[in-house]
């Protein structure tokens, strides 16, 4: 009987960890000693960072999707099934059509928008947190030629923390190029007393907002939205009027982890910040947006974490001590205009020191979007820099 590795989730983290393991364990797999299975209900893999760029025509929707099977190594089995329940004590993943026993488990089930947390949110505004909504936002921006455009964060944590800042900076460039920027009032609305969670970055972002004449409304925690009146009310007692609202929805973990009793109140998996084990289980790991780790919910974190987990599962299978540790490394480009970006590189012990915005970072960000399919998702970069 082969030793079985089951990966729940075929997004960035799940795909990379499966491919990385497949490279490391190639001979064991072809000799029938190890089996790797990825479980995901979708046959397609979506490159989610594209959702921010599609509304501005910086990326096209066809660049953002590929068949999952085309990304996985041939030696990895793919089951297009929905995981319904995970039993960590009996080492079983129950899907809508099978019960999968495992020796090692990787949970990479991601984060999902939860529109139900804010009354009125679903009907109120636009966002770039699903494929469909990104396309709808592209249409809305195309029609918008004047008025109040508010970009609002309605809950923390959410996927890609710099994204709403990037959105408002890109909107500034986009409308400037169209010659209508002076007819549009741009506002950035955020729950904290600074525009970003990390203090040093928040200071730089604040300066850029001022330069670009973007209003900042801080300490604004969305309580409810009235789509008819086009008003957003805050817990702090303020009312914000808008003509076009782009609202980052609150996020939660996947149904399968919440329904399996694994998640905390927010829906996130309690995860050891260094070993990435699901707390209390040395044969189960969690990576990417699904975890409760104090790092950004970002693809780069999932990539770095995948390398740690793949190395440690490989070592455990070989009878070695799992010795690799995740250091909290995250690397995110932050677009500051069409044609300009900076980069945030940080870990648990070192906050980011972003360089001044420049064209090279912007260019590399766009190049990276294309490289994702052929290098990152294939697990070929995984492990660099952890």
């Amino acid at each position: 009987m082969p030793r079985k590795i089951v990966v729940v989730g075929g997004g960035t983290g799940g795909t990379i960890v499966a491919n990385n393991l497949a490279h490391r364990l190639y001979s064991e797999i072809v000799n029938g000693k190890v089996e790797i299975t990825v479980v995901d209900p979708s046959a397609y893999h979506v490159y989610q960072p594209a959702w921010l760029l599609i509304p501005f025509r910086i990326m096209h929707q066809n660049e953002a999707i590929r068949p999952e099977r085309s990304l996985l190594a041939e030696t990895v089995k793919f089951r297009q099934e929905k995981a319904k329940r995970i039993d960590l004590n009996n080492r079983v993943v129950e899907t809508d059509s099978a019960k999968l026993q495992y020796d090692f488990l990787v949970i990479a089930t991601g984060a999902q928008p939860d529109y139900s947390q804010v009354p009125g949110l679903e009907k109120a505004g636009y966002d770039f947190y699903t494929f469909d909504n990104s396309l709808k936002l592209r249409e809305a921006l195309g029609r918008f030629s004047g008025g109040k455009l508010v970009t609002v964060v309605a809950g923390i944590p959410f996927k890609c923390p710099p994204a709403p800042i990037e959105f408002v900076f890109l909107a500034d460039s986009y409308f400037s190029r169209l010659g209508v920027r002076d007819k549009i009032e741009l506002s950035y609305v955020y729950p904290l007393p600074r525009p970003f969670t990390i203090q040093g970055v928040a200071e730089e972002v604040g300066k850029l907002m001022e330069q670009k004449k973007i209003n900042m409304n801080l300490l604004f925690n969305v309580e409810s939205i009235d789509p008819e009146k086009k008003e957003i009310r805050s817990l702090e007692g303020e009312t914000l009027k808008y003509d076009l609202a782009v609202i980052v929805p609150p996020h939660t973990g996947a149904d399968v982890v919440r329904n399996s009793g694994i998640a905390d109140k927010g829906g996130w998996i309690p995860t050891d910040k260094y070993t990435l084990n699901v707390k209390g289980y040395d044969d189960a790991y969690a990576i990417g947006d699904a975890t409760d780790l104090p790092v950004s919910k970002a693809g780069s974190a999932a990539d770095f974490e995948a390398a740690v987990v793949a190395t440690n599962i490989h070592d455990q299978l070989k009878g070695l001590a799992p010795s690799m540790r995740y250091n909290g490394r995250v690397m995110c480009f932050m677009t500051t205009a069409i044609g300009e970006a900076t980069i945030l590189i940080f870990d648990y012990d070192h906050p980011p020191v972003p360089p001044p915005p420049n064209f090279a970072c912007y260019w590399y960000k766009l190049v990276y979007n294309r490289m994702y399919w052929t290098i990152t998702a294939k697990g070929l970069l995984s492990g660099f820099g952890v």
Partner: protein
Amino acid sequence: MSEEKKEKIKVIDARGSFCPGPLMELIRAIKESEVGDIIEVWSTDQGSQRDIPMWAQKAGHEFLGVIHEQGYDRIRVRKKK
């Protein structure tokens, strides 16, 4: 303190949670509490000492102070409206 003992104090243990976790936990607790209730957030995150009083002031709640314990802080806010 004898006055305070009679009041309802709801403790939120957000130790180990990083910025802005403790503030978000406080906001959730305030939403679920009655006017007059005291919420005490336990936090190991240094940023909470700065963020929570700022939020309480803007939201119109009363910041009651910080009690420093070994390795964490107890930050108290009274719901005013």
